[in-house]
C-alpha cells in the first residue's frame, strides 16, 4: 500500500457528487477515467468518505465490466464482437491485434502499458461493421490488415509521445 497516494483527484470527484452513496458508480467511473483503472488505494478512502463498507464498493467495482483493477494501456483497443460485427468476421481482427501485440485471451495489456486489447458486445455502429474503438475513436469496416497498419501508426505515436 502506498502511503503517499495523492487523494486530491478523488476528493474533487467526491465533492462534485456530494459524497452520496448512490453516486458510487459515477464516482468510480470518474476515478477510472483519471487513472485508467481503479487503484487499490481508493477503496479504503472511498469507504471512509462515503460511509459504506469497502466490500460493497468492491462488489460494485467487480460486478461491472467497465471497471478494471489492473492498470490499462495508454491505448485501449475495444474490438466489437456484437452480432453484426461477428457475422462480418470480427474475430480474425481480434486475433490480428493480439498477434501484433503479443497478447492473448488471458493477457490483455502489454508489459509497457502501451496497449490493452479487449472485446465489447456492441458499440452501436453496426452499420459499419466490423468496428473497433481506440480510446474514444471509432474505426469502421476493419480488416486484419487494417488492424496491422493501425498498430504500426499507434506504436509510432506512442514512441513520439
Amino acid at each position, binding site marked *: 500500500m502506498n502511503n503517499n497516494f495523492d487523494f486530491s483527484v478523488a476528493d474533487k470527484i467526491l465533492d462534485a457528487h456530494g459524497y*452520496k*452513496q*448512490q*453516486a*458510487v*458508480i*459515477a464516482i*468510480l*467511473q470518474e476515478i477510472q477515467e483519471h487513472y485508467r483503472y481503479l487503484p487499490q488505494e481508493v477503496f479504503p478512502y472511498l469507504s471512509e468518505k462515503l460511509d459504506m463498507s469497502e466490500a*460493497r464498493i468492491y*462488489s*460494485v467495482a467487480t*460486478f*461491472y*465490466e*467497465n*471497471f478494471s483493477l489492473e492498470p490499462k494501456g495508454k491505448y485501449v483497443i475495444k474490438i466489437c*464482437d*456484437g*452480432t*453484426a*460485427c*461477428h*457475422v*462480418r468476421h470480427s474475430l480474425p481482427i481480434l486475433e490480428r491485434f493480439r498477434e501484433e501485440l503479443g497478447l492473448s485471451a488471458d493477457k490483455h495489456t502489454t508489459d509497457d502499458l502501451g496497449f490493452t486489447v479487449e472485446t*465489447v*458486445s*456492441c*458499440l*452501436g*455502429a*453496426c*452499420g*459499419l*461493421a466490423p*468496428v473497433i474503438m481506440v480510446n*474514444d*475513436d*471509432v*474505426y*469502421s469496416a476493419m480488416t486484419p490488415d487494417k488492424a496491422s497498419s493501425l498498430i504500426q501508426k499507434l506504436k509510432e505515436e506512442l514512441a513520439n509521445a
Partner: protein
Amino acid sequence: MLKSRSELSALREEYAKAYAAQSRRLIVCAGTGCVAGGSMKIYDRLKELLSERGLSVAVDLEVDPHGDAIYLKKSGCHGYCEIGPLLRIDPEGWLYTKVQLSDCEEIVEKTIIGGEHIDRLACKCGCNTYKKNSDIPFYKNQTHIVLDQCGTINADSIREYIAVGGYSALEKALFEMSPEAITDEIKKSNLRGRGGGGFPAGRKWEQVRRQNTPQKYVVCNGDEGDPGAFMDGSIMGGDPHRMIEGMIIAGIATGASEGYIYVRAEYPLAVERLRTAIAQAEELGILGDNILGSEFSFKLHISRGAGAFVCGEGSALTASIEGKRGFPRVKPPRTTEHGLFDKPTVLNNVETFANVPLIILNGADWYLGIGTEKSPGTKAFALTGNIMNTGLIEVPMGTTLREIIFDIGGGMRDGAEFKAVQIGGPSGACLTREHLDLPLDFDTLKGVGAMIGSGGLVVMDDKTCMVEVARFFMNFTQNESCGKCVPCREGTKRMLEILERIVAGEGRDGDIELLEELADTIVNTALCGLGKSAPNPIISTIKNFREEYEAHIYEKRCPAGACQKLKKIYIDPELCKGCSKCARQCPVDAISGKIKEPFTIDLSKCIRCGSCLGACPFKAIKEA
C-alpha cells in the same frame, strides 16, 4: 427563463419564422457511424471553406435579419449508415454520400456557390442514381414518425426542436389536460413498450398514478445492450428533446417530480447530447421548478451504465442507479409499486417515451391508425448483417420481413442467399425463409416463438452456420449472466459447453436432446428476463435448423462451411507445383512433400488455421 405558456408560444413563433427563413442548409450527419467515418472533420472543413469565401455561416438557429447565412448543422443519425458520411443539402434535398474531406472544396464551389449537383457523390443503388433523399428506395419505403426529425434538426439545438413544434405536447399536457386524461390518452393509444416485452405503457402509468406516495420516479431505459441494436442510442443522440419531453409528460401524468435516464456506457455521444439537452431545457425553464410558471416541477438526471447487459432488466437497472450491483430481484412486487429507491416508478424505454409527445399532440386515434390493430404505431429497427443497406429504419408495425430486407435493405450482400434473420438479439429467435411474409408485430412474433426485443435485425446469409450463431449468443448471455440464480448461472454455462463441443466437431449423440432439456429448465426457472430468454436462440435454431446440428454431430461436417475446426483443407494435385511455400508457412508442420511434386496435408496434424491458403501462389489449396 420562460414563465408562462404564452412566452414559450411566442418563442416558438419566432424560432419557426427563423427556421423557415433559412434559404440554404447543409446537414452533416453526426450519428455514431458517420462520426466514425470522419463527418466532424468534414463539418469543420466546410465551415472553414465557407468563411474563407466570405460567406456568412450560422451554426445554431439565429434570427437572421438578412436570411442569407448558410446554415451548417450537425444532425443525428440519418439512418443510412452504410453509405456515410452523409451530407444533405437543402432546399434541394440532395443527399451526398461517402463524402470525403477532399470533396469539401468541390462541394462549396460547385454546389453551394454554383448551385450545381455533383453526380459522383449521389446515392447509387444498383444501376440507378438518386439525387434526392426522398427518392432513394431505402428511405421511400419507410414511415418516419419517431425518427421524423432525427437527421433533420440540429441535435444540439433546443431552438430547432422548438421551431419544429417541440414541447407543444408538453404545453398541452401541462395546461389543457389532467393527469387522468393524459394517462387515458396513452392507454387508449395502446402504446406498447418498445423495449421488447410490449407491455402497454398506459397501464404502467395508471398503476403509478393511482398510488398516493409523495415521491415517485420516471426512469428511461437507455441501456440498449443487445448486440446488433442501436436505435435507442440514435434517438438519444439525434433527437434528445423528444424523449425528454415524453419523460416530463410521464411525470405530469403520474405525479413524479424526478426522472433518471440510464444510458449505457458505450454511448458517449448520446450522453453528451443528453447533457446538453438537459442544460438547455433547464435554462429555458422547461425542466426544473415550476415548469413554464405552472405548479409542476420535474428534475432530470443522467445515470451512466458501467457495462452490464443485465441492467437492461428493470429491477437490475434501478439497483444500478441506486449505486448497487445490478442484480435483478424476484417480481412481484412490480417496478410500478416498488421501483427506484423503493418508490413507485414508471420505467419505459427510449423509443416508448419518444412516441409520447406525438400521441398527446395528435391524439390516440391518429396513433391507432398506424400499424396493426393490436400493435399500433411504428417500430425502429437496426438493420445489419449481410445485407446491402445497413442502417437505422422505422416502419409501421406489421410490415413484413420481406419488405424490410428486400425493399428497404436492398437484398443480400454479394448476391448471397438469404438464410435467416436474428430478431431481438440474444433474447430473441431466428426467423427463416418461411417467415418472410409474416407481419412483424408483438403478438405474431410471439406466436412463432420470437420477439421484437429492442429491435435489432441481423440478416444472415447461407455462409452463416446456425450452430455457431447459437454458440455466439450463448457465449454472450453466459458472460452477462449476473450469477444470482442457479438456472441461469449454471445452465447457460453447460449449454455453452455443449455448443462449443458441437462446433469443434466433438458433438455426441444425445447433445441436441440435452440442450432442449436444459433450455426448458432455464426458461421455466430463471429469475429474470435475461435468464428466461437466454435459451431462445438455441430453441429456435434447433427448431428451424435441426439438420445443421445433426450434420455437426453425426457427420462432423459444417453445412455452411463456417466452423473452422470442421473444415477440411486439401491440396489439389493438379494445381500444386511443389514449391513448398505452404509447408514453410504451416505452424504445425502438417504439410509435406517433395519439391516439384504435389504436396499433401496431414489432417491429423492440421489445425485449420488457414495460413497455407494465403501462402499458395497457385491457388492449389482448397477448403471443403
